[in-house]
């Protein structure tokens, strides 16, 4: 297990340029992210190792996340403006301790599955958080670009510009982002007519990554069930692990590919059938990337100006040709 952790960290540091270099870069006044976010990262969640910190009130990863993100969600105004016309307010500020689902105050939780695979019962614990998709609609379709995918693969919401319209949640196949009403920029614009708070989800501890550190949940796992590192390396490890145990992968193809790979000893269809799903409790079904269908039309849009220019030039030549024909006939 120690070796596993060491490998994780070594791989991570290789991807990010190395802790020593980060320290040196900081000392020299170079931008902090220069070293830390270099390269594409991925995370591996080994479900053969995760035991959900059985026996503890809250799993170590969940607890570490809560600690790392404590104070990130400001206190909402009282009363929270009632949005028109939906009148739907989401206030988790009085339920901050909830840890059995995703909330603005709980960005990772453990799903428990009593999977039945051909009559064979297996108990599997599944840490659930944002998958950090390769082409995340939650980020690309955000009307204010408050949600963005960074080069290292982390998909991060900027709470300072998010209006809490929850479009990111709607387009996410797992409905991961969670809203806290009564906070954020929308209060300064049109609180009852536009927006409804701020959306929150796992940001892969981008601030820690920038410092060359490991995300809180990964660092806290006592069984080293989670790892982060260069994408190719993590993918290769996940595939090799799945092959070795005759296991299954989730996250490699889902929603067009993600930066989070789950390795499970039982099929994910069985896990999906066994887990509790609903608001804040995502499924484990296979999902296609819906926006993929629009990519062809998007490429045509990118070619649109060239089409217009070509048609314009052709039109001018046609006009000249017509004029010559006319003058030829008149002569």
């Amino acid at each position, binding site marked *: 297990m120690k070796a596993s952790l060491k490998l994780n960290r070594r791989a991570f540091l290789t991807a990010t340029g190395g802790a020593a270099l980060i320290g040196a870069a900081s000392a020299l006044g170079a931008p902090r992210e220069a070293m830390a976010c270099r390269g594409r990262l991925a995370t591996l969640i080994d479900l053969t190792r995760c035991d959900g910190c059985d026996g503890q009130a809250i799993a170590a990863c969940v607890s570490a996340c809560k600690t790392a993100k404590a104070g990130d969600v400001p206190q909402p105004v009282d009363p929270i403006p009632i949005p028109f016309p939906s009148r739907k307010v989401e206030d988790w500020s009085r339920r901050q301790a909830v840890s059995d689902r995703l909330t603005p105050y709980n960005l990772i939780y453990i799903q428990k599955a009593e999977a039945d695979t051909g009559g064979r019962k297996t108990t599997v614990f599944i840490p659930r958080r944002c998958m950090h998709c390769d082409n995340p609609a939650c980020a690309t379709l955000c009307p*204010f670009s408050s949600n963005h*995918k*960074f080069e290292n693969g982390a998909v991060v919401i900027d709470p300072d510009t998010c209006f809490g319209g929850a479009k990111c949640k709607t387009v996410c196949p797992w409905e991961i982002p969670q809203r806290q009403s009564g906070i954020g920029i929308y209060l300064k614009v049109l609180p009852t007519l536009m927006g409804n708070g701020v959306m929150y989800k796992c940001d892969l501890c981008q601030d820690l990554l920038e410092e060359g550190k490991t995300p809180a949940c990964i660092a806290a796992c006592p069984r080293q069930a989670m790892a982060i590192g260069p994408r190719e390396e993590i993918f290769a490890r996940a595939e090799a692990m799945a092959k070795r145990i005759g296991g299954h992968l989730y996250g490699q193809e889902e929603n067009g590919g993600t930066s989070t790979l789950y390795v499970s000893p039982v099929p994910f269809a069985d896990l999906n059938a066994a887990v509790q799903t609903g608001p804040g409790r995502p499924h484990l079904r296979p999902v296609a990337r819906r926006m993929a269908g629009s990519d062809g039309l998007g490429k045509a849009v990118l070619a649109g100006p060239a089409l217009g220019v070509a048609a314009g030039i052709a039109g001018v030549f046609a006009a000249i040709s017509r004029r010559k024909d006319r003058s030829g006939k008149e002569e």
Partner: protein
Amino acid sequence: MSQDIREAENRVFRHSGLEMAEHWAIALSGLVLLMSGMFELPMAARYRITALPGFAWSGDFIASLYVHYAASLVFAAAACFHLVYHGLRGDLGLLPKQGDVRASIAVIKTFFGKGKEPPFGKYLPEQRLAYLGMAVTIAVLILSGLVKTYKNVFAPDLDYTLVLWATWLHNAFFVLFILAFVAHIGALLLRPNWPMIRGIFTGTVRLDYARHRHPLWIATLEPPPAPPEAAAERAVPAPVPPEAAPETTPETVAAETEADLPQTPPEGEATSPADEPDGAART
């Protein structure tokens, strides 16, 4: 007489078929873009636009993205065609000229009964200014939209600073586009401009209207009126040395015509808002 003037039908050609196609391609795709752009905000479901007959799709962000893309293709291609085609042909009549700002202020004052509307060329000075404003708005929307589209298709991790610039420019100019659209429709609602509405559908406007309000344009289409003495000379032909003959240029034609024209248009036709939407123009 110019072939653009059909005296018997009391019509004068103002827009070619191609120009009308450009106008309507940009106008209709722009309208669809405004609508689908609003749907891309989390607006349709919240404000129950989805409940309207035929608009159930409006709450589906991916469906409205398809619509937005389809309209963008037409919009960007038509705008670039307009720029290149008319740019290469030297059709520059809609570009602002020196003094247009001052002239526009004077014209706007006539709306409030101050002064008299001067005779116009084919386009009003404020039309030329509005055209430039609309062109800049459209250009920014297209450029920022292309960055956003590229990000969606190829590079979701595109440089965040560039993405933020593209997004906020797109949003800001989206608002300006709405305002420009509202102003454009508002101008068409003014009674004096009603005769011009027909032009963007059929390509022609009433000749008597154009002679009253756009005499400087009509003067460029019609031969100059023969001066009385010239007519008399034609009656009694006499050799005239070429250098003694009055030189007729478009400027002198315009000046002469302007001097001969009534300074006050007929009642009810004295205001001058824009009449050519989106810069599609026959120059």
